[in-house]
């Protein structure tokens, strides 16, 4: 019979205690156990980047981690950014510059870019392209995503 393991995970500042199977993917745990549906699953083999989350502040693919490995760690998902009424500056730039179409890959891009812009507040175009090179978008051709990152970087560094 399936064996369950107790885990304690902090997600978006809230502490969750749950019993999970060893094989449960972190992406499935976030989506189906915690109901945080903003993290999307596009390939489940770590290439597309749609499921990117922050794991102790670092952008990682939640489909390549088991939920048990998140025990004692701090996770941030797209739900921790802005709300529809009050978008995060990066989200605002994404809509201002039309950097999303179907929106499925977008949470992964945002979670890749949040730590990137914290580390590199004034990136060059090449640096932006390198930063998002692990995220696939089939709709936009990336052009407007790059524009949006420039825009967000400018606005966020002005605020500081």
């Amino acid at each position, binding site marked *: *019979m399936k064996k369950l393991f107790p885990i304690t995970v902090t997600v978006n500042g809230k502490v969750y205690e749950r019993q999970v*199977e060893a*094989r*449960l993917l972190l992406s499935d745990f976030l*989506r189906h156990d915690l109901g*945080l*549906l*903003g*993290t*999307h*699953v*596009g*390939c*489940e*083999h770590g*290439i*597309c980047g*749609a499921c990117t989350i922050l794991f102790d502040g670092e952008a990682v693919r939640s489909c390549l981690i088991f939920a048990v490995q998140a025990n004692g760690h701090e996770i941030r*998902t*797209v*739900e921790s*950014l*802005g*709300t*529809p009424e009050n*978008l995060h500056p990066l*989200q605002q730039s*994404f*809509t*201002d510059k*039309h950097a*999303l*179409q*179907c*929106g*499925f*890959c*977008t*949470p992964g891009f*945002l979670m890749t870019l949040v730590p990137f812009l914290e580390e590199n507040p004034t990136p060059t175009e090449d640096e*932006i*392209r*390198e930063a*998002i*090179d692990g*995220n*696939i*978008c*089939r*709709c*936009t*051709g*990336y*052009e*407007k*995503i*790059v524009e949006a990152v420039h825009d967000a970087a400018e606005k966020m560094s002005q605020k500081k």
Partner: protein
Amino acid sequence: MTGKYFGNPIKRLEDKQLLTGNAKYIDDIEVPGQLHAAFLRSDFAHARILKIDVSEALKRPGVVAVYTAEDFGDFWKPGPLQVPPPTAIPGSKFNARTLVPIAKDKIRYSGEVLAVVIAESRYIAEDAFDDIIVDVESLPAVVDLEKAWEDSSVLVHDDLPSNMAALVTQEVGNYEEAKKKADVVVARRMLIEHVAGAAMENRGFLASWDDQNQVMTIWANTQSPLTVRGSVSRALGLAESQVHVITPAIGGGFGPKVMTSLTDDVLLPWISKQLKRPIKWVEDRRENFLATTSERDQVHHCEIALKKDGTILGFKDVFYHNTGAYDSYGMTVPLNTQTHIISNYRVPNFYTQIRMVFTNQMVVTPVRGAGRSEGVFAMERMLDFAAKEMGLSPIEIRRKNLLRADELPLATGITGQDFVKNTLDSGDYLGNFEKCLQAIEYDKFIKETQPKAQKEGKRLGIGVVAFTEGTAVGPYEGCKVTVSTSGKVTMTTGYSSQGQAHYTVFAQIIADQLNVKVEDVKVITGDTNHFAWGAGTFASRGATLVGTAALLASQKVRAKIFSTASKALGVPEDQVELGEGSVSIKGKPDSAIPLGTLAAMANPMRGVIEPGVEPGLEATAYYGPPHGSTGCGAMGVILSIDEETCKPVLEKMVIVDDCGTMINPLIVDGQLQGGISMGIGNTLYERLVYDENGQLLTASFMDYLMPLATDMPKKLEIIHNHAESSLKLNPLGIKGVGEAGAIPPGPAIVQAIEDAFADKGVEILETNLSPSSIYGYLKKVEHK
């Protein structure tokens, strides 16, 4: 026509929910009591099923049911033809062998479903695969298109005399006569490789039978909710009103999500009805590669006949088109290829033959570009080969033959995917091409940039091609526009949406007509209980067909606003002024009645209404064009390539596009850029590779390379060149633009690679060019 909103770069209304993780996609839908389905798929591409033993799987805790084909009894049958056969084309032959929902007796492609497991969780359902014993007799796989066509081939469908799925020949003029008069005839065989739609969201389906009300509710990320509704109701013997199909947020379509009559939409409603439980299935990426439809994959045998000055006298193209194991989606793709081969140039004599062939591969249906890419590639390449043979520049030969604006509209005589004779309605093809040459600085490149680079030991190449994009075909689409008593406006349509900004662009059209704020127009798409008529999302037709229907419906509502206001205000209609969100007597702002109040007046609760008056500020309209509208343009590319690594770097790309009047230029640019990335991917990275056993070797994103941010051109310039003549076919002067970007990158990039190696005489005869295949071409000429 420009309005307060129409024609302007309005920011999308749908973004905020998508950006914050609040939008619900198919896998985000949960229904209480739902069970999970997983499909056991065949590892064999071609085999006879001897026995499938599921008895152990049924013993596994958490497994609720397991089904094989036999368990469905009489319900099992081959599905309908989703697109009718091309009977409109005289002499056409078409053998319908439609998709079966689950393999019975015979397996015809790797990935075909053998068993459906229903369990408490997806994890358990997949565990149960290990318990199922499948005993088959393996058969040789039919993979190579040309060999498959031969009478000696192994058969995909045993009851047919050959693997011929269809044979369609069309001719205008007389090619053989033209050839006799030609100074030069050039012939080539070219491959156009197999690619995936690869939307970031896979497919998914949730069926929930309500036994009390006898209603089937379905959530599906389909491009064709009304087709799903029709096929489910037919299969289960229900009225269409008993089937409610809802499309949630959809993570990209690109064509393959139009396909229905697959395992999920046929069997899961039946199973839900049997078990009286909601059943959910979400495809994984491997399944998407193996079993969701894909496209391209043609072999062309082309011949072009010319006068010595480069004038085209005739073109002949006999091409093999892979339809996969079944042909439920008819001939949309190869017919698009036929129309697009001669859609740019003056070709007085044209012979084209489709040899559509069954293989042991997944079914082929449209993917962004959808046959157009193939046709344009074949023609553009042949012009390049002819130019070289005759010592002409690729520019000269195109200038000589490109259609001029005053030659349009032009009936080409070739019947297209819509079974209507193709008409190139409008555009300045030559003008597009000239603009593109200027923007890419062609002359400067040839005279200065390239020679300078050469001296520095760098290889640069340039390619410039023309293209057309047949869009906005019929039959029709429609919508309903309603002003509610809150003053907010709703538009509902059966069309479904996968990221194309429908929620914004349709709202723009309506907001201008009704003089309301664009954010006060709520667009509801793809819900069959809201609007139940239409064909589906394909062929870049949404903006034109639904957009025009939105204009017509909102014009009717506008007329109703005036007639209702005239009565309410007690003045003739010409004294009524429609302000933002209210009506009043001209010059008397104090008389204003809010639109919402007027909507309530249009739906009186007592008294009598005049005969013929329909309640509410509401109207429905439909629009169907006489024929599709053809977008057009040109693309130029400059690339650098290292001779050792053969890795091309796209230094600059220019697209000139005419998609008629733009509803929203921000959205048009997004469509073009996205299409271009797909065209680049198709040319340099993506390829579905089947081996000789029919095994797909590229069933993951590790093997199927998608274009990334670093693969895009260093500079990408978009030029809109909207010809005045483009404004006639429909009242808004709109053409589609969804596929334009995906069409020209192939021939443009290949021409540029050849140009970079012009001194070596490299000739490229295929679409998919990895660095190693370019290296192979170089070695081939070196060894000559």
